[in-house]
């Protein structure tokens, strides 16, 4: 029997077209839905696992950090810069006219307590870790951080002032658990 014969309804009088369409659409629909769910759950295995997500908060005791000192801690595999800023550094940061900045943000909007600056230590250009945490590091022209990869200068509020980076150093979500302890994440 050729395909043409099958298409010819007269030779097969009992074909219920509506029933066939219904069966075809429901079968194909269910197969597609099942396939989509399966593919999604398989691809989802590549998302962060529960043990990775469990590492997404870090608590830091600030009390050992003297004025002018910095501390680098790890959070989600990235360095977090914590700087105990001096009066001079705070005034340097807050006296800048926001309008002149490449990425406009006031110093107040970037800190919870002006003495403590907490930023993600990853240059917003291409992801290098800027210098300026250690004594003797090049802190750049604005006394904050300097990225050695492509020469971006950050100020004492972690804002981009000069160089190719488009944005200020990111402020991670954090909160003061007590006056001396912060919880990042």
């Amino acid at each position, binding site marked *: 029997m050729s*395909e043409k014969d099958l298409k010819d309804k007269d030779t097969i009088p009992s074909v219920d077209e509506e029933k066939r369409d219904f069966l075809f659409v429901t079968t194909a629909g269910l*197969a597609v839905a099942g396939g989509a769910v399966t593919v999604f*759950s*398989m691809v*989802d*295995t*590549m*998302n962060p*696992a*529960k*043990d*990775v997500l469990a590492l997404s908060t870090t608590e830091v005791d600030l009390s050992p950090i003297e004025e002018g000192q910095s501390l680098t801690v790890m959070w989600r595999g990235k360095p977090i810069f914590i700087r105990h800023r001096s009066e001079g550094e705070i005034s340097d940061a807050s006296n800048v006219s926001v309008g002149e900045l490449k990425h406009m943000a006031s110093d107040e909007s970037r800190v919870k307590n002006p003495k403590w600056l907490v930023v993600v230590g990853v240059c917003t250009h291409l992801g290098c870790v800027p210098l300026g945490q250690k004594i003797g590091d090049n802190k750049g022209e604005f006394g904050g951080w300097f990225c050695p990869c492509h020469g971006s200068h950050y100020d004492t509020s972690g804002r981009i002032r000069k160089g190719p980076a488009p944005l200020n150093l990111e402020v991670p979500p954090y909160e003061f658990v007590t006056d001396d302890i912060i919880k990042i994440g």
Partner: protein
Amino acid sequence: MKDNKTEKKGFTNWIDERLPIFTFINHNLRDYPTPKNLNYFWNFGSLAGITLVIMIVTGILLAMQYTANTEIAFDSVERIMRDVNNGWLLRYIHMNGASMFFIIVYIHIFRGLYYGSYKYPREILWMLGVVILLLMMATAFMGYVLPWGQMSFWGATVITNLFSAFPIIGDYIVTFLWGGFSVDNPTLSRFFVLHYLLPFAIVGVVALHLVALHQFGSNNPTGLDVKSEGDTIPFHPYYTVKDYLGLGVYLIVFAGLVFFAPNFLGHPDNYIPANPLQTPAHIVPEWYFLPFYAILRAVPDKLLGVLLMFAAVLILFFLPWLDRHRVRSANFRPFYRQFYWLFIINCFVLGWVGAMPAEGIYVLISRVATLYYFGFFLIIMPLLSKFENTPALPSSISAAVISEKFDSKEPAGSETYVK
């Protein structure tokens, strides 16, 4: 120079003219003329192919989470089960997928054995299939070692020690396989690499298997050659839809195993981390190796047992020359058919004694079953080739189908064929 009027338009035609993939698909998956009388046993080839894809996809995703180091391999598998999103599902699909793969492939092989699919002109097609089986066995064995549980470790120890049976070079081979003086980190490391590599080798051999298949097309339940266009129907839509239905049923069984009895075919001891100082009380391989394991243990001599076990698989290569009977399908071979079913039962018996302790009555049963296993190939097949008479064969696939449809005892237009 092309005539403008006949030049085909459209994007797919533009590509097809330069790279004929659509012609290829059309030729092999659409118009491909297929015997019109294939039964559901012909679903198992495509099911095996689909299972191979499932195994490779889940395997690649698992490899992204797994660590091949004896210190953390076990923990990394537990992490997949507990912490990775849907990791339990991923691992259970892969774990049970191995069992499903062997179920499918064994049925596929038994199908070929019943309908004489290994006979002229499909000898190479059959032999490539045996190569795939061997690669699958190696891959499955090494995969079972990766979780680094007790069964992993002791299975690896026992199987690699098989090679120590060879005189003189045996110990060197085993040390070489281990990369040391016991199953240890170097062993695990290379097993992981090979377990990842071999499936792609299988894909390559499967491609050759398909090329060889499409050279003469599928065999069919009558075992008769396709004689005219009337004996065939296009692959699409007739066999695509038949394969889809079979796939649906298969996936229900597969999913049933994964969701309701994921550890049914496994061994609980493999959830105990590997301990080189303590062998489990009762050590058995995965179910799909049990018949071969039974043959190994049936022989009281170490070397002979190992050789017989390897021979049990390798003998399949010689099947086209052991069975030289000119009729393919067991449907027309009354004697072969009896021995065939006895052989199937015998395989189950071997599997069963393989799981039993090697003592008492089980040893005797395994010896009798081993004798029949080899006797079937080496004595019964050659003798039947010479002496088995067959009834008249239908003159063509169409004639067979029509006579079946009208339930006549006498095949329409039959030709007398007596060996």
